[in-house]
């Protein structure tokens, strides 16, 4: 762990990290809680950019590269991505207690806010101001999900396997409204098996780089 923090850190103009770092200090439990509490509280419009800002830029716990390695892992594991990041980072510093602390910190503010929204909706859900506000929010929420689909769609390799998996999933869960559990239990392993076969075929036709 005594590798230089990152080029980014040395390039910064705030002068805080110009000295070659010897070893990064291990954050205390309180600091883990505080960092994830702030991520939860400030995480408007998707929490991941705020998590990166806090963990890489403000606290310096992770380098850009380390964050870039944790992210796909957090995305591969099921559940809210940022919750997985809190688990992985908390565990790294303080084991099980750290993971619990990170996750609790992350969810404390959003839980209080959500309960507040619940009470507010119960009282003012049918008020004119709420109806107006939601009329503006709903199209944006729709557009954001569609944009995410487009971004992910163009990042997929353009082959028959991916096309079939995307379309089958959409037809099964979206159009036929089949329960997600059995559909994913079939399509998840099936898709992985298809990709595994493709990867094996690739590995046997291309000479190993090592």
């Amino acid at each position, binding site marked *: 762990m005594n590798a230089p923090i990152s080029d980014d850190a040395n390039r910064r103009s705030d002068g805080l990290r110009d000295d070659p770092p010897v070893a990064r200090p291990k954050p205390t439990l309180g600091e883990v809680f505080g960092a994830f509490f702030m991520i939860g*509280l400030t995480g408007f*419009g998707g929490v991941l950019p705020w998590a990166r800002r806090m963990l890489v830029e403000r606290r310096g716990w992770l380098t850009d590269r380390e964050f870039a390695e944790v992210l796909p892992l957090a995305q591969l594991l099921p559940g809210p991505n940022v919750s997985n990041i809190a688990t992985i980072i908390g565990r790294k510093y303080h084991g099980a207690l750290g993971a619990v602390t990170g996750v609790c910190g992350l969810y404390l503010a*959003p839980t209080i806010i*959500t*309960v507040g929204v619940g009470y507010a909706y119960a009282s003012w859900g049918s008020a004119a101001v709420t109806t107006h506000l939601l009329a503006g929010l709903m199209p944006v929420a729709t557009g954001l*999900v569609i944009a995410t*689909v487009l971004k992910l769609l163009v990042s997929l390799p353009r082959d028959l396997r991916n096309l079939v998996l995307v379309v089958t999933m959409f037809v099964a869960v979206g159009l036929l409204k089949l329960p997600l559990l059995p559909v994913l239990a079939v399509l998840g392993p099936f898709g*992985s098996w298809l990709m595994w076969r493709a990867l094996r075929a690739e590995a046997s036709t291309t000479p190993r780089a090592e």
Partner: protein
Amino acid sequence: MTSRLTDLALHSALWSILAVGGMNSTLADIQRYAVDTRHWLTAQQFVTFFSAMQAAPGPNGMAVSLIGFQAAGLAGALVVTISMIVPSAVLAYFVSGWVERRNDSIVVKAVRRGLAPATVGLLACASYVFVREIDVNIGRAVLTIVTVVVAYRTRFNPIWLVAVGAVLGLAGFVK
């Protein structure tokens, strides 16, 4: 009431485990169960909750906690939140190290590539739920399309789009 809380807990835990690529992947299944099967809330409230939570900070899954609130009050919200967090966190705790050590293995790569199209398909289902359940008018259609283009082509934080939508709604430009 207890059975409803148990039902909420079991399904939140299930959605948390099935949420490949993030909580929004389960949106269509949550709609199917919470609205169509259990009638905890109306289809309108469902899209309302997911839209409203875009304007609040925190992980995407908090809209599910709001459904818990609607179904069973404060206890419902807390039960859903905890049930949603624990299974995936436990899995992440025990599995992340194992996966990290085998990140370049063919099996982990295959699972990653196999789940990617599943995630895309599920998010397409989520979009479809929104499109299906929201009453369309010209203002809403234009705002949706503008949001798609801006979010797709630029790297602005989405909260600015949410803020623009809120202002346009409050000002009466989008009804």
